[in-house]
């Protein structure tokens, strides 16, 4: 690692001010950023740790929504969200391993937007709102391709608000070496329709599968997608799985998620 300073602000305002200096970068749980720094793929002069910002921690229910602070760990979501939004708690409980979940945060995961990460599928599949120190961003506008988001320089995710669906489920086909998703599908049924978000599959990162959404909005059962097929064009093709294999998995995981949704 190149040398840098670490700041530990206690409020969003102080964090944003510290991030205003040149080459400063936010530090969430460090589960992605620390390995990146070790490889010298990033060279910030200052890290601004968000772990001491109490207003960015924790979970609250508000009028049909669940709001999760941007610095809330995966372990906290797994243990505290189950009563309100079980599919989201399950997703968090299956990220990486226990030690990763004790440090990694929802804000860090969404800011990073790894094409195989789990939270992006939940946020897009729920039509969540990403709340930053400056504005509110709809998930549909937030994700802009792998490792790319609508966040601007120095902007931090202070919270994420998820509308709680009638039913939902996340199915992750684990890539066992990385513990990320080889393909993961998040399905959520709302009174006004169904959303289906796919992670792990595409060179474009997390995306919605609109044909399945349409079919499932009319008939919420795995049979509804039986006649659909997924094109392998533009899907990830690597040593872990071919594009055709991933295309097949998208449909299988969608069917499983619908069948398991509760």
């Amino acid at each position, binding site marked *: 690692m190149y040398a840098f300073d670490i700041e530990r602000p206690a409020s969003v305002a102080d964090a944003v001010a510290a991030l205003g200096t040149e080459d400063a970068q936010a530090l969430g749980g460090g589960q992605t950023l*620390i390995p990146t720094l070790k490889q010298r793929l990033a060279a910030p002069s*200052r890290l601004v740790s968000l772990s001491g910002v109490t207003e960015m921690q924790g979970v609250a229910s508000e009028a049909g929504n669940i709001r999760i602070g941007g610095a809330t760990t995966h*372990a906290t979501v797994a243990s505290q969200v189950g009563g309100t939004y079980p599919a989201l708690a399950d997703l968090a409980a299956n990220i990486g391993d*226990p*030690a990763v979940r*004790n440090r990694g945060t929802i804000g860090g995961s969404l800011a990073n937007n790894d094409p195989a990460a789990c939270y992006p599928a939940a946020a897009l599949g729920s039509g969540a709102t990403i709340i930053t120190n400056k504005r509110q961003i709809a998930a549909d506008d937030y994700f802009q391709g792998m490792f790319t988001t609508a966040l601007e320089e120095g902007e931090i995710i202070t919270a994420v608000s998820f509308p709680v669906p009638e039913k939902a489920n996340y199915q992750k086909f684990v890539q066992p070496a990385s513990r990320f998703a080889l393909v993961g599908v998040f399905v959520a049924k709302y009174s006004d329709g169904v959303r289906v978000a796919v992670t792990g599959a595409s060179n474009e990162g997390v995306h919605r599968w609109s044909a399945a959404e349409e079919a499932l909005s009319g008939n919420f059962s795995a049979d509804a997608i039986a006649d659909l097929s997924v094109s392998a064009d533009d899907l990830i093709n690597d040593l872990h799985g071919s594009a055709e294999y991933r295309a097949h998995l998208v449909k299988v995981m969608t069917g499983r998620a619908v069948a398991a949704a509760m």
Partner: protein
Amino acid sequence: MTKVTMTVNGKSVSGDVEGRTLLSSFLREDLRLTGTHIGCDTSQCGACVVHVNGEAVKSCAMFALEADGADVTTIEGQANADGSLNTIQQAFQDHHGLQCGFCTPGMVMSAAALLKDNPKPSEAEIREYLEGNICRCTGYHNIVKAIMAASGQDVSAIAAE
């Protein structure tokens, strides 16, 4: 350099660290607590697991400065006050849960974190909890067996000796 102070295995310690000093480096190089092992340094293997404020974390993926003021427990803090092995450590010995021993500190720390939250885990729960702890020697069966035994459960149904 910035001064950090934390409690490690019940004792207050302090030292001067850089921003980039990892908790694992502080423990091993400054405090000379070399029981915490570095197997990969890429967050994959779990040999470096310690407890920070009671939670299992990979000490190679946390900065020492972030543990300022925290209560840290390492493998050196596991033995009983008279120096004898604690229940989990003794079970690893009794059930041959280690061979080269490189992964063992992380395995024991993960096991301790699991049993604190879930005193009687099933075999499947143990295997799932150890997902982030890699062992290249034992094939895991005897580790699972040791943790079952440490939690006071019957181990006769678990495969392989």
